[in-house]
Structures are given as C-alpha cells and as structure tokens.
C-alpha cells in the first residue's frame, strides 16, 4: 500500500473482502500470517489502538451513534486526538473549553466539505441513508486517519448519488490526504476512482493491477462469470 493512493478491492460475494478489513483492523484474529502497518507489526492489536495508529473505517451496514447529533458523532471520531483528562473536565478548565471549541470547529469544517453541515444538529438515526453514509465517512475522517477503509460506500445508492460519491472520495483524498481502500461491487465506481485494484476470491488474491489490466484479466472474468465448460 502506497501513500496517497486509492486501492479498490473487488471480488464475488463471500470472497473475504470484509474479513480482510476485520483482520487489518484487529477486529477478527487471523488464523495465520501477520499484519504490518508502516513496518510495525500490528497483528492481534485491539481495535481501539488501531484507531490511534491512524486507521479509520466505515461499515457495510451503517454503524452510527444513532441517538447523538451528527456533529457529536464526529467529535467521538476525534476521541483519540482530544487529549483532556477528568480533572480538567470537572473543573471545566480553559484548555478544556479551548480544545472542545476547536474540535467543534474542525468537525464543522469536515461537515461543510461533505456538504452535510445543514444537518449538524439532527439525530444521526433520523437522516436519510445517503447522508448517513456521508456522516460515517466524515466520522472516519475526523480521526485524521492515514489509512481510510471504506466498506461498500455506494451500497443502496442510486446512479446519481454514486457519481457524487466518486467525486467525494477523490476530493477527500486530495484534501485530507489519507490512503484509501475501497471495497465495492459497483464496477463503474471502482474502475473510475481506483489507482490499483485487488481481486479476491475465496480468501485468496487472484489478481492485482490497474483498472485496465483487471478488466482484461482472464482469471477475474472466470471468477465473476464462471469457467466456460469445454465439451
């Protein structure tokens, strides 16, 4: 994985794409092999420490903090960056207020960039699906990740929304600078934004390359369409 690139991961259902994310982030333990992140071994690290190392993630089925404001969702995302201790909170010290207001300002900036600042004070669970997706991306961004993992960001979106999402992901990379890994079934999206594509099937990598190479790869076509039987 290179800095500042978008890697697309595709594969048939059950190929192990989401599992790859779970292992990368320490949510599931690998049965074999090791995970390296910036030359540091991170196998079996708990999930909350991976966030400190700079990995942000969104989920296939949206996981927002439903009973909280959109903007508070983002502030929770900044948890590891907001260094305040209990004493400061109880005394409501100046630095506490300063850090909090800074966090709110930054959260608002991210919301503005994703064009969802108009819903900043809505409860997250009351938002339409497309906006919930955006809030999830915004929350992942708020932790200033160096690596952003997006799990099927376009699931349940129509063509127009998918188009917007493509622009958004490209823009996010340029503005906030994380490397992005996208799991996606929507070929138009993956081919459109990825610098490189990785194809998985039954938990194994079957191909890797630029979008053009993948489109012409025989193994990939077989995995998706099945092998032609010879009679």
């Amino acid at each position, binding site marked *: 994985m290179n800095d500042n690139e978008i890697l697309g991961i595709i594969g048939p259902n059950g190929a192990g794409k989401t599992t790859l994310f779970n292992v990368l*982030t320490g*949510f599931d333990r690998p049965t074999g092999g090791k995970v390296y992140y910036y030359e540091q071994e991170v196998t079996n690290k*708990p*999930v*909350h*420490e991976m*966030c*400190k190392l700079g990995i*942000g*993630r969104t*989920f296939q089925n949206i*996981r*927002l*903090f*439903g*009973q*909280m404001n959109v*903007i*508070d969702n983002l*502030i*929770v*995302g900044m*948890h*590891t960056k*907001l260094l*305040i201790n*209990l004493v400061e*909170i*109880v005394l*409501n010290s100046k630095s*506490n*207020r300063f850090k*909090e*207001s800074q966090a*709110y*300002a930054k959260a*608002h900036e991210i919301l503005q960039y994703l064009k969802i600042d*108009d819903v*900043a*004070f809505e*409860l997250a669970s009351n938002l339409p699906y497309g906006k919930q997706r955006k809030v999830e991306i915004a*929350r992942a961004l708020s*932790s200033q990740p160096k690596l952003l993992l997006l799990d099927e960001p376009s699931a349940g979106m129509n063509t127009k929304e998918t188009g917007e999402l493509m622009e958004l992901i490209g823009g996010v990379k340029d503005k906030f600078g994380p490397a992005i890994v996208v799991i996606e079934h929507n070929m138009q999206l993956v081919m459109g934004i990825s610098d490189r594509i990785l194809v998985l099937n039954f938990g194994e990598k079957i191909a890797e390359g630029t979008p053009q190479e993948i489109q012409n790869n025989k193994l990939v076509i077989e995995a998706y369409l099945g092998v032609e039987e010879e009679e």
Partner: protein
Amino acid sequence: MISKNKKINYGLIFAVITMFIPLIVKDEYQLRIVNIVLLYSIIALSINLIVGFAGQLDFGRAAFVGLGGYWSAIMVVRLNVPFIISFISAGLFCALIGFVLGMLCRRSTFDYLTLITIGFNVICLKIFLNWHPITNGAMGIRLIPSPVLLGFKFDTNFKFFYFALGLLAICSLIINRITHSKIGRAFEAMRDNPIAAAYSGISVANFKVLNFSIASFFTGIAGAAIVHYNNYISPFNYSLDESIYQLQMAILGGLGSLPGSILGSAILVIAPEISRTFYDYRLMFVGFLMIAMMLWSPNGILGKNGIGEKVIGIRNLILVKKNKKSTKKIINHRR
C-alpha cells in the same frame, strides 16, 4: 438544543427558586420529604449515568447506597473521624468497589452485568445484616451525627435542606460537565454502537469500568448523606426492591436527561407519602406508572422523544434554526 449559556441560566434560576422552598414549606414533615427528594436525585443521577448514558442495566444501586452509608457511619461512630473526611471517603470507597466490580465483569456483556449487579446487591445486603461486630446486624447503627461543615451543624430539616441542595447542585454540575465532555460522549457512543465506538478509538471495556466507578462515587456520596440525615442506618433500606425503585426514578424521569432524574425522584418519593395506606401499595403504583410510561413514552418524561420534548419541541425547533445560521454558534453550542 439550547445553547450552553441559556442552560446555565435555567439551572441557576431553578436553583434560586428552590432556595426559597424552606421559607414557604413550614411543615417539618413536608420539608423532610423535600430533603429526601434532593438526596435521592443524586442517586437517580448516578443511575442515569450508567443506564441512560452508558446503556448498561444496573439493578444493584442500593448496594452502593448502603456501602457509602455504612462506610461513613462506621467511620464517624466507631472511629471518630471528622464528618467531611468520612463523607468524601465514602464516595471514594464506593468508587473503588465499583472499579473492582467493573474490572471483574470487564468482558461480560449487558445481560450478565445485570445479573452480576443483582447478585452483588444480595451479597451486600447479607453482609450488612450478618456482620454483627461491624454493622450491628439487623439493629442498624444509631446516633449517627448530623453533617458538620466548618463548625456549622446541619442538624435541623431547615439547615439540612441547604446542605442537600448544595450537594445536589455540585453533583449535577459535575455530572453535567462529564456528560458533555469527551468522556460522556464516549459513554453515549458505546451505548449506541460499541463496535463503531471501538473503531473510533474508544476502549469500550475500560470506559465501562470508568463509568461504573464515577457513578458509584456519586451513589456513595448520596448514601452517606442520607445516613447522616436520618441519624440512623438500617440494612433493610438496601434491598433489591429499593434498587428497582431507584432505577425507576431514573427511567421515569427520562434516561439521558439530568433534570429528568430529579423530576423522576421527586415524583416517586413524594407520591407514596400522600398517605400511609398508599405507601404499602407504592410498588403497585410504580408498576402501573411504569406500564403506562412504556406504552406512551418509553423514554421517560424528559428523555428523548418524551412527553417533555413534545411540549417544548416547538420552542426548541426555533432555537435549532437560529443555531444553524452561523459557525460561531455551533462552536458555542456545547461550551
């Protein structure tokens, strides 16, 4: 959705108004009930911290009320420790016990934690009842002195009212600050979605323990205050029934709403006192009240989407629109 400055003003106005209660309520018995409401409000607040904010179900709060009470009573009566030290240490002792209990069930999930708290309550009750040399068993401990601060003795209902009010004000201020901070948001996040909370860098297990310890501190403080007010401690006040009653205060008032907890405890403390016959049926009354609440307003009176929010919803709507207009207001939203 009300901006912070206004919220403080409401709280101040409310506090100032309540300060005149003892001047209006001359009846000693009624004033006593008001004092009990103030103290139970602190317990309801601490339960709200666990149930409303962190989303855990605790059926054993009365055990911590009792632990705080017994600790402070034993310190003052048997060891002649000054009130202020025994009082604060009661809170710290409960926080420690809460921490230990939290560490033990660090990995247990929601249902099991509930069962553990029930078990803990029963264990504590049996200890209070049967550890004669320390707790004096079923007889309880008598002649516990009233609170003394800087030489001033809060020995009458009238004087104690201001002690209780001050205590409630400090506790609710601290809890309010915690819930509006990074820590409070972490509690809410792990209530709404523990997996996403972990991916946001929150160590869910550790924050559960922290939550339990903080809440136990306030429960212990309230427990100690009650004991010094009654001048008497009896183990029968810390049964499972009492835990459920306290839990209902928090739920009735509205989970996740701090004023709700005070309102809930006011309703549930005052209602049974209307008449003594009614007192015997208080659990039945509470049962009916709970069923009605669950059907029409599952989040309590002042909780999210509760009755209170419907009533003041229109005004809030206007305030939210104002808030949306500028970034500066958004920043001031919380602080």
